[in-house]
């Protein structure tokens, strides 16, 4: 940033600048940093020994296991869907394209409790599909498949939302050239598309994972809250908190906060990589 430009910008007098930066930092400290510190402080409040006891509690371990299972099933499903949808809406023109892009945002707008209710009404024992499934002896609600289903609903926009703006901006010339040169569909995706979108894809996956691991409202409607069976980590946090086991609740919460921090770290890394990808020449000059 050039110094001479700053004289023709507003807000650059030192007192304006530093009072704005000061109030922004104070807000970030109060709204984001202190809450984050509190989570870990509370988790450690009863000493490391009780932290270990809380962590290795049978119900905590089974909640961690279920949460990992849900994420492991949700992420691949939404990864595949997100890539196909992004390919569809950024590489082809067809009627209804805009509608499709709006539809994919539904989970962002719908309250998670309503999302859970929608699934409960359809697949629960009273629903038209649920009662038929009941006759086949298949129970989806109040069991882990239901939790996976609502989590897929809640987290399905993330991969597509990360990919669509990037793929739109990159355009289709490179891919069209590859096709003209005789690349097959899979070669095209692996050799041309994937290298261009890999970092955005990574962030989409990490974001999907973070939300899948942390979903609360929708999951609490369809879970049935059976301890040791259908309790995910966020539901476990709620149960412990309501049992007045505050240190225990924050121990589980600190695991989830750790995943959130990891997500932010990956995001920063991805943004750094994308900035490098955009300016490869200057970067190579730097590294030489």
């Amino acid at each position, binding site marked *: 940033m050039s110094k001479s430009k700053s004289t023709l910008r507003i807000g650059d007098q030192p007192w304006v600048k530093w009072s704005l*930066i000061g109030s922004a930092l104070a807000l*970030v400290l109060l709204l984001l940093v202190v809450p984050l510190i509190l989570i870990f402080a509370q988790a450690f409040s009863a000493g490391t020994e009780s932290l270990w006891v809380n962590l290795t509690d049978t119900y905590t371990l089974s909640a961690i296991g279920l949460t990992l299972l849900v994420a492991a099933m949700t992420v691949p499903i939404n990864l595949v869907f997100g890539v196909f949808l992004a390919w569809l809406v950024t590489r082809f023109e067809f009627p209804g394209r805009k509608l499709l892009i709006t539809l994919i945002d539904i989970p962002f707008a719908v309250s998670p409790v309503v999302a859970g209710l929608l699934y409960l009404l359809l697949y629960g024992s009273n629903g038209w599909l649920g009662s038929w499934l009941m006759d086949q002896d298949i129970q989806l609600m109040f069991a882990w498949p239901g939790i996976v289903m609502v989590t897929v609903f809640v987290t399905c926009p993330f991969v597509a939302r990360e990919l669509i703006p990037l793929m739109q901006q990159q355009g289709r010339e490179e891919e069209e*050239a590859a*096709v003209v040169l005789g690349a097959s569909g899979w070669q095209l995706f692996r050799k041309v598309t994937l290298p261009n979108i890999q970092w955005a894809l990574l962030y989409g996956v990490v974001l999907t994972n973070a939300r899948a691991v*942390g979903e609360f409202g929708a999951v609490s409607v369809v879970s049935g809250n059976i301890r040791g069976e259908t309790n995910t980590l966020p539901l476990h946090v709620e149960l412990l908190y309501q049992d007045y086991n505050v240190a225990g609740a924050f121990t589980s919460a600190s695991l989830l906060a750790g995943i959130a921090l990891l997500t932010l770290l990956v995001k920063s890394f991805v943004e750094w990589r994308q900035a490098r990808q955009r300016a490869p020449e200057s970067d190579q000059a730097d590294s030489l």
Partner: protein
Amino acid sequence: MRASLASPALARNNKPGKRVLPGFALSLGVSLLFIGLVLLLPLTGLVMQAADMSWVQYWAVISDERVVASYRVTLWAAAIASVFNGVVGLLLAWVLVRYEFWGKRVVDALMDLPFALPTAVAGITLAALFSEGGWYGQLLAAVGIKVAFTPLGIIVAMSFTSLPFVVRTVQPVLEDLAPEDEEAAVSMGASDWTVFHRVLFPALWPALLTGVALSFTRSLGEFGAVIFIAGNMPYVSEITSLMIFVRLQEYDYAAASAIASVVLIASLVLLLAINLWQARYLRRLHGR
């Protein structure tokens, strides 16, 4: 047209109606199947449940005094929270784009924490901070302000979970703003404030409004973060999402569906309005 500059093969294939890139049928099939099964099919359960009620019953449920009170609480809290986020978000975006300071990258990364942190974790953290013995609660109690277990707590929780929206919508627009208008105004001797509200704000407000609207939509549906800090007193601090949850726990599926349909329609209308508004605003930007 740009195609005329490309190789003859590309130009030929760019003719409307002929698709160069492979995978149209496959990606359309996968996307429609997924959207149909995951997003649209569950709506049928709600429609069928609601169809079992007469209009009189439906109206009685959704205009019940306690339910109406929950709409009022939710709408007011979401409105105040999103306006607060509009002001704070604009300040944070401004500081992140216009100034260089130590720790800026960390602050920028932390900005997404509310999106990455599970809502239940945010809920117990805010409840612990603002409870009477908590770090913030003690200080606020000294000046006679009570946040936990009051409607004020709902506003705090909603603000926290939707804080990043305004920052992330205003930030890119502020970055891409052409400096010429600002430079011209400054060199003609206009005061900082005049330049801001006559030159910069007119360029920023569509993005700001989009961010506030997204923040409002998200706040209307927020559940996990709110229920821990709200106290959930009927008529006073009970949000509509919780109202649905309460009806479900009473096994009154019909009432839960009726209230959910109100919430669902409101959020879909908001989503559509935001998308239409964004499309119009983006066209205007590109049309220039």
